[in-house]
């Protein structure tokens, strides 16, 4: 029981991170029907920007942790969002209207490019960051002597994710940008006819997706304390799995899927084997694609007349 609760906490933390990345996949898919395979790399860039940010904070002598966290978080979101915007502008927009595979291939190329770009500029070695948010909150101790605890960092990650998702959900539901994104998702051509600037809406979708992935990168840097240029690949594919599990194109689905993937990974490594946790996640992908292709919350594709 204690062990279960502990894994639940770990799984929720992980799930929060996957959920944030998955939103980027699902939004882009919803609007332009394309899997942005470079999204994992955007998350990796977010992690690198935040580690650089923390170094700069150290050099600048800003040692009050909440302030440093806030500054680095905002800078990471801005810089990474710029990357997201640039990727869309250079690699996808020129291909809009061409055949469906073209942007997909372009996305894979962009992903390879970004990985190598970071490897060349930042080096291939693992980058460590000393723990910044420390301390744990013991919750309860079992008779067997096993103490269930939640670290302050985990609380921070889960809270930040909840806040961001609430803000994001509000943005989609009630701001003009969100409304135009939903309009584009339902009928791109018609959205243009009521005066929505479709290109700008797509750009902003990439920007918001990248900003959320940047937060995920920021959290991972803090949580694991080590990053390298290759982390985007695995995390990207897992978040993609999360998006598919929740129903690609559905925002609540991406959040739910992220959470479930995080929990599956945590419980599988807790009860079975750490080595095979990735296998467990990808078996989920296979099962979902076979038995529930529209995902948990996705709507079945309705052919347009």
């Amino acid at each position: 029981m204690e062990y279960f609760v502990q894994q639940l906490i770990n799984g929720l933390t992980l799930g929060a991170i996957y959920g944030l990345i998955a939103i980027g996949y699902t939004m882009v898919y919803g609007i332009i029907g394309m899997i942005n395979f470079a999204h994992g790399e955007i998350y990796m860039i977010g992690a690198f920007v935040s580690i650089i940010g923390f170094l700069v904070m150290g050099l600048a002598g800003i040692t009050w942790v909440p302030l440093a966290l806030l500054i680095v978080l905002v800078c990471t979101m801005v810089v990474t969002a710029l990357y997201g915007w640039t990727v869309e502008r250079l690699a996808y927009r020129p291909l809009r209207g061409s055949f469906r595979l073209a942007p997909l291939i372009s996305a894979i190329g962009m992903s390879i490019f970004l990985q190598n770009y970071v490897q060349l500029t930042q080096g291939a070695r693992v980058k460590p960051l000393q723990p910044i948010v420390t301390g744990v909150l013991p919750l309860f101790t079992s008779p067997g002597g096993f103490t269930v605890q939640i670290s302050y960092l985990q609380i921070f990650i889960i809270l930040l994710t909840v806040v961001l998702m609430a803000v994001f959900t509000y943005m989609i539901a009630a701001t003009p940008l969100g409304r135009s994104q939903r309009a584009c998702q339902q009928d791109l051509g018609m959205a243009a006819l009521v005066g929505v600037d479709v290109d700008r809406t797509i750009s902003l979708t990439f920007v918001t997706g990248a900003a959320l992935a940047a937060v995920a990168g920021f959290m991972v840097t803090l949580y694991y304390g080590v990053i390298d240029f290759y982390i985007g690949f695995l995390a990207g594919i897992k978040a993609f799995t999360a998006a598919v599990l929740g129903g690609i194109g559905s925002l609540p689905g991406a959040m739910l899927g992220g959470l479930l993937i995080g929990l599956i990974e945590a419980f599988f490594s807790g009860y079975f084997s750490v080595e095979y946790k990735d296998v467990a996640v990808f078996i989920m992908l296979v099962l979902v694609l076979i038995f529930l292709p529209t995902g948990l919350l996705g709507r079945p594709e309705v052919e347009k007349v």
Partner: protein
Amino acid sequence: MSARKPLLEVEHLVMRFGGLVAVADLSLTAYQREITAIIGPNGAGKTTVFNCLTGFYKPTSGRLSLHHPDAIYLLEQMEGFRIASQAGVARTFQNIRLFPGMTALENLIVAQHNRLMRASGFSVAGLLGLPVYRNAERAAVDKARHWLQRVGLEERADWEAGNLPYGAQRRLEIARAMCTDPILLCLDEPAAGLNPRESAELNALLLSIRDEAGIGIMLIEHDMSVVMGISDHVIVLDYGRKIADGTPDEVRRDPNVIKAYLGEEETEELPPEVAADIPELRE
């Protein structure tokens, strides 16, 4: 009749798809505060003209000029969304294209997207809920409700558009087009699939829009009760060319129009060698 001011001038419009000429050298004028109907047999190129007007197609050649009080917009040179947002051309579709997953009210608010987007500082003010944005949003909602009322849907404001009955969807589409503040409203078969009562209501709605909003309306229609009942001006197309242009009465009597709709007397069309084989014609 007071002096008619041109609203839209189409000059020498040509639209070719490969070898198919859908619109061949078409020139026409639609006037302000008038309802201009475009009619013609199937495949005459009516919808193609609309698609050129609203930026769905890039015309092969020709000029489409829209007269605003202070400027002239050349539609053939504009991007699709600017035709809607700046030039003020709105349209509806033969097969309805609402945003099916959004409520009726939201459909009308999306149509006011540009003003809201500006007021919200690209959503930043919207996210923070600043008063600037709140006021703009309230105005948008008021306008949307006004139009819902005009088309008789105020009680279904929160229905998902895709779940509305067919006739209501048609009216909502017109309301959405009006929410973009157009100066030219293009309706592609607005009466298709409506029963006689609904199509009479549609006539009344279109006449009131023309008189109150003071905008020009162009409509493609097969329902002659609509065309003859409300249009000020009828243009007849056949095979991508204009074959008649005038008031409903003039058009109704035009021999070219009768020929296009009913065909010619058969004997004239028969080649002589075929005619020679028909005994009755030999005498």
